[in-house]
């Protein structure tokens, strides 16, 4: 079994433009999808992220924190998933019902392991 992180990027403001009825549909569909994956064990955790924060950078001589640089694309949440292969998990992500109600981008990255040791 391999583990994966999926980063959910929000683009623009399309959620705010949805009507309350459409927003409810979104919550019910995506909520059901996440809960289903949790129950089947395919998902270890999933959380939304605040759109603000800080960036910490530097080296041993100087570590500074600066306001988090807001860009057009921003990570709004993550999924921590489990699967046999990238392809299998990619198919799970493609079934995320959030794609039904607007443009989304989800970046899927395997958690790095060294073969035979981890």
């Amino acid at each position, binding site marked *: 079994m391999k583990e994966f992180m999926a980063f959910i990027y929000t683009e623009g403001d399309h959620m705010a433009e949805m*009507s309350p009825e459409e927003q409810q549909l979104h919550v019910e569909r995506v*909520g059901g999808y996440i809960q289903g994956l*949790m129950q089947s064990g395919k998902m270890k955790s999933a959380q939304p992220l605040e759109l603000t924060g800080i960036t910490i950078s530097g080296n041993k001589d100087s570590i500074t924190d600066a306001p988090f640089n807001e860009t057009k694309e921003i990570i709004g949440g993550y999924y921590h998933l489990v699967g046999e292969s990238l392809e299998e998990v990619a198919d799970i992500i493609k079934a995320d019902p959030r794609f039904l109600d607007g443009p989304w981008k989800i970046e899927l990255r395997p958690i790095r392991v060294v073969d035979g040791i981890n």
Partner: protein
Amino acid sequence: MTGTPQESKALAEHFFRQEYAKMVSVITRYFGLDKVNMAEDIVQDTLAEAISHWEFNGIPQNPEAWLYTVAKNKALNLLKRDQYLLQYKNQVETMDQSSVDTIFSDERIADDQLRMMFACCHPAISQESQVSLMLKTLCGLGIGEIASAFLTSNETINKRLVRARKTLKSEEVSFELPDSTRLEERLDTVLKTIFLLFNEGYSASKGDRLIKYELCLEAIRLTELIVNHRDFAEFSAPSALLSLMLLNASRFEARVDQEGNFVRMVHQDRSLWNQALISRGLRHMQKINAAQEIGLYHILATISAYHSTAKTYASTDWPAILNMYDALASFDKSPLVQLNRAIALARVRGPEEAIGTLLDLEKEIPASYHLFHSTLADLYVETGEFSEAIIRLEKALQYVKVDSEVEIIRKRIAACEEQLKS
């Protein structure tokens, strides 16, 4: 990095929409009607927050309380901002000290929604803007949904909303119910706008049928708010309108066929009539039967009730319906009333007499009113005057625009021609 979503409960149908509408009205009480869009922004933000939390962590045990707490905090934060603190000092104090339970108590919500209803129907706002504003703030419909119900663009609806909000501001409309001297007059306007909203949904014109049905249900819900409110207990018109809409809405499914064409009452499959709505409608009839004054809605509701309780078209109590149309015609001279009266007249005293009445009316009715010609054609078919019927159908054909209706009239012409040959 582990987390299991809480046991998620399901949301009630239209939960977001209804809560949106309730919160907008309640929060507007604190900001005033000139900042109704600020209240809308707060509520929009609250829902956005609910979305991101609920989709990841499941729906909370008490979603309503969750929303109200977040909305209260957001409203307070805004009220406390420097530029508003002086202006809204009293509001900050009352809101700060009140618990979510008191701010959002059922009674308070109903009160504020009624205030909002009267504000939306302020006489200085045009009727089409009144309807759009009600759908947005009191029913929680999105601009796109309102646009598709009215077969117009988002831009048009947006313009109407902007204009309506400007008027609320420039007229300095207060967020209070009108005083007793103007209450009845203002109530008339409110009922008229609600009835218009209902008829937009009820009309057989093309458009998203689901949303159109929602318009009917919303009109019913808004009228129920009035009927159930203590300040309006003495008025019977709201109950009459409520009855009328419930009884009419019961035929929603039956009056349009699979292709979306209007099905006349005579051809409707009565098993499709919604009996639950009919019995609700009849229950409210009891209140209006005791009414002192009889108005438009009382008469229309009574007519609708005669239809709803008839087993078949033929066994309908047509003499009673004709009486009602006579009463209606005494103060409503519109061609539609005359036309419907003629249909009842034909059932009571025969199609010949109804034809005579309609021909007498012809010069008063605009030639483009195609229903006049097609009703007349029906009556000619009954008397066997098929060539007259064809003349009328061809006239109707000149004014019908919708393709499917053109098709139906062509079929009726063909059927008449068939009869002439045999």
